[in-house]
């Protein structure tokens, strides 16, 4: 299977990354190449195999419902490139 410019544009949009024309061409070629390599997984019949999503056999890990003090707002907002009146500020969002 090939990853063409159209597919690259679609996933770039999903990824929220603006790409230059040059990048689109390079990535299309490289990702197609990698995809070709990955096709080798299809040599294996995995119909009866359970997927392994975790690298641990742990289960049922919880914390108690206990309050902990939050961080100071000033400390948090100082990290932000843009804030005002105690809020984080972003370009206008239209619903």
């Amino acid at each position, binding site marked *: 299977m090939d990853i063409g410019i159209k597919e690259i544009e679609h996933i770039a949009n*999903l990824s929220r990354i603006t790409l230059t024309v040059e*990048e689109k061409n390079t990535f299309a070629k490289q990702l197609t190449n990698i995809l070709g390599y990955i096709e080798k997984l299809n040599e294996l019949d995995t119909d009866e195999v359970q997927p392994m999503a975790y690298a641990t056999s742990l289960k049922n890990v919880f914390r108690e419902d206990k309050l902990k003090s939050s961080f100071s707002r000033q400390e948090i907002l100082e990290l932000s490139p843009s804030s005002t009146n105690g809020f984080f500020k972003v370009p206008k969002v239209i619903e």
Partner: protein
Amino acid sequence: MLSRELSANKIKEKIIKREITAQEVVEELFEWIDIKEPLIKAYLCLDKDGAVLKAKEIDKKLSNGDKVGLLAGVPVALKDNICTAGMKTTCASKILENFIPPYDAFVVKRIKEEDAIIIGKTNLDEFAMGSSNENSAFHITRNPWDTDCIPGGSGGGSAAAVTADMTFMALGSDTGGSVRQPSAFCGNVGCKPTYGRVSRYGLVAFASSLDQIGTVTKDVSDAALLLQVVSGHDGFDSTSAAIDVPNYISDIDSVDDNLRIGVPREFFGEGLNPEVGSAVMDALEIYKRNGAELVDLSLPHCGYAVATYYIIATAEASSNLARYDGVRYGHRSQLSEDNIIDMYSRVRAEGFGSEVKRRILFGNYVLSAGFYEAYYLKASKVRNLIRSDFEEAFKKVDCIICPTCPTQAFKIGEKITDPLQMYLSDIYTIPANLVGIPGISVPCGFTNAGLPIGLQILGKHFDEGKILKVAKLFENETDFHLKKPELN
């Protein structure tokens, strides 16, 4: 021997015995760093003032006769994807160029508690994605054995710093070999513990089901020491195991009778540099001479490990890196901010380098509608097959020995235009991450070009104690770990 050339255990002993002060150690170290850093470029950030301050504190404790920690006065470097409160943590990415975390990673807390001295943050491939260090947004770290060569990746900075005696030990992260491969290329000891042995809290995530913090040290005893400090359960990491930590430090010299070592055929086949292959064979002979039984093994699905890894790692990465959007922290575009989608896309276009973009794109591709089963689910199933291979193997053997990497360190620029070739350089390290088992790389020789070769020892889940012992046995019989590069 110069103090900076000593192992962490040795320098600690001298500090505790008050043969040298921690402050002297730090100051001498920084003198050396000042001279050699321009050549090696191992660091992204150095904190001499903080280090000296901490050293004085430890010296004071010692002169007061107070109890000191396991790492008393030992300078430690941290890969720059491990969060340090008040100290920049950039992941070698423009998107986090000025990011100062408001909190310490679990491992940072631990080493501070044990009186380590944090001297700075080391270079890496951006967000730990790479095998050569060439993907750092800031500069390329050089291999101390040959500065035209890459130090390995992603933790090239930590490995180069340890080898160049620019720190006594370092912490790194290993998602597909990022601790072991650079250690092999730089000729030191790199240990990736079992998934869950060391808390990931505060390690900036690349691929959450594969990431594990590891140690980079001058010898195996130092690895045991540092691992001792950072291992253990953490309530802030759901995947952290509540399994007791054995005493790695004291157990390391005990001898195991009837050691059975698995030698997997698949790791000695096509693509293996013959010089590397023969060094590993020589190492196996040493084990045999010491009474170990070598067992021929097959891990039939390991040939699929890189493909499996690439799907899982990029899928997880695409989601882990979604948070870098310029809203709460990090880089924000100076360009127009008319609409939010535009802002996100510009921030991320400007902030990420090519390799990171490539992996985010690929990860989103394999997870996108209609492809989940064909790629992510398929890979998760093959991952299980690889896990079964190891499970079967460990029924027959105590550990598995193979090369850490198929080749020696390659030249800067050699593979950068061919991502697939670059990924294949991690072919022997990736299986341990997929399965979650511990692995350690120790120096086992040099190629004709004078570049180090790494021997990889893989163990069962939570059997770090065993692989440390097996590694120590080899180190006792050889002196590869004592060899120093000439730094001109």
